[in-house]
């Protein structure tokens, strides 16, 4: 069967890619291994509880007066009206195990600066400078996104001079340069785990764009879990005549003369198309789906040069008391030993590292679970393959229990809030679970680590040189916008538009 385009995988990136192409009138086939769409943007039911599988907070959204790029994307894709998203009235709330610190940061730039001044006197000026840079960063990035890799440095130089100065530096370097007091630097870096690299490795550009969008636009969360967004994207795709096949895994991508021809699924069916967008990782695509001899040298080198990003562990708890009864006042509970991201990054190479983010979804969406109950999910990260080295088929269940034990104990000890006796449902997801549900290498949940030349800007700047096989593009957490909900949605759109643009150029020739 012939299609204009085939999308492999219906995670955030794949869904948006498929819908974008379908909207442009293309004939699209979307293939997904699982029986639901969304990849990790999904939910699951245990007893009375529907658990969110991954999303803590969505950034880059905003509202009709103050629109972020995801608001605009969803509007373009005609799904905005179907969604009910709630604003979260807190940027983050962080506590430390070793030093007993606690900070709750509000949304809104003014509020954020003022609160920081309360916690760290004399931080105000540097904070104002920080947000000024954030704004310029935002505008420059918009320009870069629209330029689709064709960057005019004269434009950049005249319009965003400071951007060009800070763009090649890490978060740590820029915060030092603007003389932000140490404590403020530490507090503002709290989100470093969301990008999966410590302050000295993550680029300022990337971090600033994320935190700015959270603080300026409010983080949001869908009322019916991320599954609500995934469903809306898929339904719109189907409505426009898109063809979706769930429970269908791609086992081969056919390449001839360095050009994609189609795919073969595990039920031995072949589908043809000149555009293939993969939501599956480059590791899988170049390492398994495409025959060895058809993988270009550079594709191999690029893949070999990269470092796999964070592995995730998640303990999902359905509690039979309300957040008030339990004393869970905050939406998020970032728990670290210390606020030193370099030190914590090293610590988090170990499986048992105690650092985690707890989310009380009911504090944004009161009816996210039945009245008088609470959903609390605790997410931890590991920056190495240690889990894979420890786990065996025989210790897997015990390992899960031990992980849950530790998470709950640390959470209780740090917050002084008792949750154990209220556990009505419990589920634990490990890197193995994520490997099972995404097919990603070693079960990573953040694609490649954002380090050195694999940070946001280098990826964006080189995006056009790295399509090594004609007609093959990547979307999702491994692609040029890196991981995260907003980034993976956006990368889906970017991949689709790029594929169309290149196709047109090729067709003309």
């Amino acid at each position, binding site marked *: 069967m012939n299609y204009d385009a085939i999308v492999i995988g219906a995670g955030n990136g794949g869904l948006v890619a498929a819908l974008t192409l379908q909207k442009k009138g293309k004939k699209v086939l979307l293939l997904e291994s699982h*029986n639901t769409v969304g990849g990790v943007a999904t939910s699951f*039911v245990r007893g009375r509880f529907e658990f969110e599988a991954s999303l803590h907070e969505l950034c880059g959204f905003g509202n009709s007066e103050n629109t972020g790029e995801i608001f605009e994307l969803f509007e373009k894709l005609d799904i905005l009206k179907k969604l009910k998203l709630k604003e979260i009235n807190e940027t983050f709330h962080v506590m430390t195990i070793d030093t007993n610190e606690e900070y709750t940061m509000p949304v809104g730039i003014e509020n954020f600066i003022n609160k920081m001044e309360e916690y760290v006197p004399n931080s105000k000026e540097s904070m104002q*400078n920080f947000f000024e*840079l954030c704004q310029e960063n935002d505008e420059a990035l918009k320009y870069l996104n629209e330029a689709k890799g064709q960057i005019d440095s004269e434009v950049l*130089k005249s319009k965003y001079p*400071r951007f060009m*100065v800070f*763009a*090649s*530096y890490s978060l740590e*370097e*820029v915060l030092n*340069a603007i003389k932000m007091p140490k404590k403020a630097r530490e507090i503002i870096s709290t989100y470093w785990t969301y990008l999966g690299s410590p302050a000295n490795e993550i680029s300022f550009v990337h971090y600033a764009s994320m935190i700015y969008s959270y603080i300026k636009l409010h983080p949001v969360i869908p009322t*019916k*879990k991320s599954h*609500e967004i995934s*469903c*809306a994207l898929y*339904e719109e795709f189907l409505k426009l005549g898109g*063809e*979706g*096949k*769930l*429970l*269908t895994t791609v086992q081969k991508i056919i390449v001839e003369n360095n050009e994609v021809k189609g795919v073969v699924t595990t039920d031995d069916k072949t589908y043809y198309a000149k555009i293939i967008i993969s939501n599956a990782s480059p590791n*899988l695509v170049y*390492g398994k789906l495409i025959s*060895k001899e058809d*993988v270009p040298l*550079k594709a*191999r*080198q690029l893949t*070999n*040069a990269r470092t796999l990003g964070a592995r995730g562990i998640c303990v999902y708890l359905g509690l*039979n008391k309300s957040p008030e009864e339990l004393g869970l006042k905050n939406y998020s509970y970032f728990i670290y030993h210390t606020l030193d991201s370099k030190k914590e990054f090293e610590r988090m190479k170990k499986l048992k590292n105690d650092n985690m983010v707890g989310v009380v979804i009911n504090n944004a969406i009161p009816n996210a679970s039945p009245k008088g109950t609470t959903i609390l999910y605790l997410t931890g990260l590991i920056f190495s*393959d240690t889990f*894979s080295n420890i*786990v065996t*088929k*025989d210790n*897997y269940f015990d390992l899960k*229990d031990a992980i*849950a034990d530790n998470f*709950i104990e640390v959470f209780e000890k740090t917050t002084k809030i008792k949750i*154990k006796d209220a*556990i*009505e449902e*419990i589920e634990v997801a490990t890197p*193995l679970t994520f*490997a*099972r549900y995404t097919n990603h*290498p*070693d*079960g990573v949940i953040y694609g490649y680590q954002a380090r050195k*030349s*694999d940070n946001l800007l*280098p990826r964006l*700047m*080189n995006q056009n*040189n790295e399509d090594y096989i004609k007609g093959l593009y990547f979307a999702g957490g491994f692609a040029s916008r890196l991981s995260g909900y907003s980034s993976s949605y956006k990368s889906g759109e970017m991949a689709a538009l790029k594929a169309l643009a290149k196709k047109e150029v090729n067709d003309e020739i």
Partner: protein
Amino acid sequence: MKFKIGTSEKLDMLKFKNLGQEREKIIKSSYTDNVKFDYKLNNLVKIIHPKEIKVTVTNIINETLETKTFELKPLNGTLPNFKAGQYIVLDIMKNGHIYKRSYSISSSPKDLSSYQITVKKVRNGLVSNYLLNNVKVGMEFTIHGPFGNFTYNRLRDKYDVLALVGGSGITPIMSLARAINDNLEDLNLTIIYGDHEEKDLIFKKELDELAKKNDNIKVRYLLSDEHSSVYDTGLISKDTISEYEIGKYSYFVCGPIHFYHHLNEIFKELDIPNKLIRHDIFKENEVLKHIKHNLTVLTNDEKITLSCYEDEPILQALEEADIDAPRKCLVGECGFCRSKLIEGKIRTDETRLREADKDYNYIHPCVSYPLSDITIKLCK
């Protein structure tokens, strides 16, 4: 605002412009080996959660007049680990149709050289009776799993567990008792096992032995249709449950659906919180075949029309018509059969649908019944 990072602004700008080339350089100098998708973890997924397992029947044990245990050994290697209380899905070829049915594993999780499932005759039971009458040692089957959440969790459940069992509901609890005996689970298990008559009790001898051997296994029988001096008579009642200190126990309920409803009423009267109740429902549908509706099934490539009785689960009608619809648990727990209702009205015993799925008319055909002519769309 004035600020400075590097030695000069000019150099910083140059550095920025070079970001892309810097990346190129790193790629060019990286090693050239083939990319290998060979990760220990991804390989382990296939061992812990294989798509399917081919097994042979290596032994058949007559447990009671109406019950047999089938021992299933893998053709290759060992079986995936499981937790006591989980089930497998068995593909059964009968008259040219493939039926998929779920059965709890009754053997101990310790022995992974085989799984045992224990099957009881069901009145008008389509598949169970076929298994009991036709399966011989040496026959081969495909199984899927293990799946399921009817398992003990020390973080959630009380140390003391009262298992309330009706009939063949003993199978997962038997596995749990064996797991305790094998030191794989640590809990204090009291089983109240209800059936019609003594001759119906499955595993009685072994249960009694386990109870004798282990301080933390107790078993008590309750017969509804037989009066005897040895056993209690009647059904599990409010009084039976009240004999055990409320608040001290988690309740593991396992049996047919009416048994579960009956106990749920009691739990409500006794004000027992949800947290303390786990259940596993056994269901074999008896279709009376009165009212018939048209069932149109859409897949990406086909449109098939068949019929479905008003008291027949939609999934069962699909199965009879040889439509390979996804299915696992068959009791509305796992969500694997999730399909979209395009047209028509249904009745459902649904409790496990995601909120957003309701908005888009998704249903679980294993617990949904047509109330009119209906059209559904499968997921591929």
